């Protein structure tokens, strides 16, 4: 399990290579990348600032990774979450899961994303032409997490 909380950007192919580490027994790799969009609602985003709780962030990502690992037969997983000032088009978060089985890889990646939305100690602030505001948590995200039981 590779967990990183970082400001620096990441390269998906390089991260997949890190996870594969030369192994040839992997059947399926799923990835998910979250990006800063240029528009939220009807407002143009100029900048997104991600505040985080440094002492907790990596630990909470690792807990979420462990939950996925306990639930599906994974051969490895990566979670990278960026913080700091990001701009439209920038990558925010990367999840990679690998398994013999494609369903396990897909479900684990989706599960991890659902948990990150509600349990990773990060807070998004958007800067638009109309000023800056904190992004509200979506109750919908709680429901998505809760469906995993």
């Amino acid at each position, binding site marked *: 399990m590779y967990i990183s909380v970082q400001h620096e950007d990441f390269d998906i192919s390089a991260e997949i290579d890190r996870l594969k580490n030369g192994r040839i027994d992997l059947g399926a790799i799923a990835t998910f990348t*979250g990006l800063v969009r240029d528009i939220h609602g009807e407002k143009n985003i100029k900048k997104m600032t991600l*505040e*985080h*709780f440094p*002492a*907790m962030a990596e*630990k909470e990502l690792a807990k979420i990774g462990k939950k996925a690992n306990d639930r599906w037969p994974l051969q490895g997983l990566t979670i990278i*979450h960026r913080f700091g000032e990001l701009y439209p088009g920038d990558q*925010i*978060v990367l999840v990679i899961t690998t398994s013999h089985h494609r369903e396990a890889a897909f479900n684990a990646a989706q599960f991890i*994303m659902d948990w*990150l*939305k*509600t*349990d*990773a*100690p*990060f*807070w*998004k*602030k958007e800067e638009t032409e109309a000023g800056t505001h*904190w*992004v*509200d*948590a979506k109750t919908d995200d709680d429901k998505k997490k809760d469906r995993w039981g």
Partner: protein
Amino acid sequence: MNILYFARIREHIGKSSEEVILPDQVTTVADVIEYLESLGNNYQNAFAEPDLLRAAVNDEYVPLDYNVSNADELALFPPMTGG
């Protein structure tokens, strides 16, 4: 007790952390919040919406009725918007 604030709550209070000596009657996170509200409008504004308040003690998420003491580190923040 060392208290950390994040995001909207940090901005309302105007600082990211502070050292607070808890009065004797304070036993839970909710009590700490009530005590902090007595310190000024900025705290009242920060905690105006109890539904939008989350806490961690010693780097673990806890409910607001969790027991705390001066030796603990408390963090207060709005619901997370990671991912």
